[in-house]
């Protein structure tokens, strides 16, 4: 009951209407009920309305309805337990998965650090036996051909570019690296792509370059 009602001890019609339902269902305190009953004397039509509501609800068993509601909901606790167990099992599965994957992830990181998944640009891909100890391709007949053609002419024609191919032993490590890098520059995307299917391409391109070199040397030799 609010202060104004306490002071007046009477209710307006609209105030009484708002309390009518609680009055019928016995939800008013003793004090509120006394005030409401005084209002009913003032508004007799509300009394008949209260009687009508009481009579209509007399045939309805509220307690029975609540019992059936409880019965309908009885399996909820079981389903919640199932849901919680399922969530718990899923959590355990995730934890086990992570625990199993952790060593694999560490192994992958170590492998990536120590064995990068890229081809070493200083060593062309392909059969290792096709390269000499300096990492250069072993080409059958090249030495004899160079003897016949004359190394000086060839070197003059081709400049620094093929020098490491012609006589790598006379070059410093830095020069060898520079020459290798130059040759591999054009094919670096193949090398760095890291796709197995492209691994052979650098070698193909590499040998194509060498073929061009042979053609050039042959041309010089024929002069």
């Amino acid at each position: 009951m609010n202060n104004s009602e306490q002071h007046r001890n009477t209710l307006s019609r609209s105030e009484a209407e708002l309390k009518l339902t609680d009055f019928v269902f016995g939800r008013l305190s003793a004090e509120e009920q006394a005030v409401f009953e005084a209002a009913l004397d003032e508004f007799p039509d509300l009394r008949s309305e209260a009687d009508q509501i009481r009579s209509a609800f007399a045939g309805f068993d509220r307690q029975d309805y609540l019992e059936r509601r409880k019965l309908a909901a009885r399996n909820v606790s079981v389903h919640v337990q199932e849901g919680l167990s399922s969530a718990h099992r899923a959590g355990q599965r995730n934890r086990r998965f992570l625990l199993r994957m952790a060593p694999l992830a560490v192994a992958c990181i170590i492998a990536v650090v120590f064995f990068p998944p890229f081809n070493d640009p200083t060593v062309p891909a392909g059969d290792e036996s096709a390269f000499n100890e300096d990492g250069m391709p072993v080409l059958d007949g090249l030495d004899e051909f160079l003897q016949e053609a004359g190394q000086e002419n060839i070197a003059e024609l081709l400049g620094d570019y093929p020098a490491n191919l012609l006589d790598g032993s006379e070059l410093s490590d830095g020069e060898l690296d520079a020459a290798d890098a130059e040759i591999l520059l054009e094919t670096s995307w193949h090398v760095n792509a890291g796709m197995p299917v492209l691994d052979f391409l650098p070698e193909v391109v590499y040998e194509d370059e060498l073929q061009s070199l042979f053609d050039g040397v042959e041309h010089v030799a024929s002069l």
Partner: protein
Amino acid sequence: MENVLKLAGDQAILTEFREGDADRAADAFVRAHQDFVFATALRYLQDRDDAGDASQEAFIKALASLGNFRGESSIRTWLYRITVNVCSSMKRRKTVRSMLSLDGIGALLRSRDSTPEQALEDQNFRDNFDLILAQLPPKQRETFVLRYFDELSYEEISQMLGTSVGGLKANYYQATKKIAQLLESGNYE
């Protein structure tokens, strides 16, 4: 008096959940409120299976944060909000499913799961009074059920529904008058 006892029960459950046997407290918590949550979900979703799923989801969400419940509102107010949010999400998902024309398949699957006993129980629960309640505007229906069956205070219902106490009293009065008329006339099927 019942509310006071219920509050004491909730407080005991909360204390047990935080400081004692959490599993036992969780089970007691669900059992104490399962009919309230299920009935709320059923009113929103109008489908027993969906209401069961929504109740399960609502309780799992509530239990996940029960330890952090600060008591700014009553447990029932808090649970009601969670349940209504879960039901709204479920309704949205159902709408999307129906837009994707998968609803028919879902209904088919559900009908396979439903046993004759369940169907009978469903029918018994959703009796004449539910047909009457279904004829009320949603706000009047919610106000009536929360006040008449769940015996919540107007202040709690006001927090749940976001309506003023005066407005709730008017809704309760109108709903009761309408129900009385329908009960007397028997014209609600």
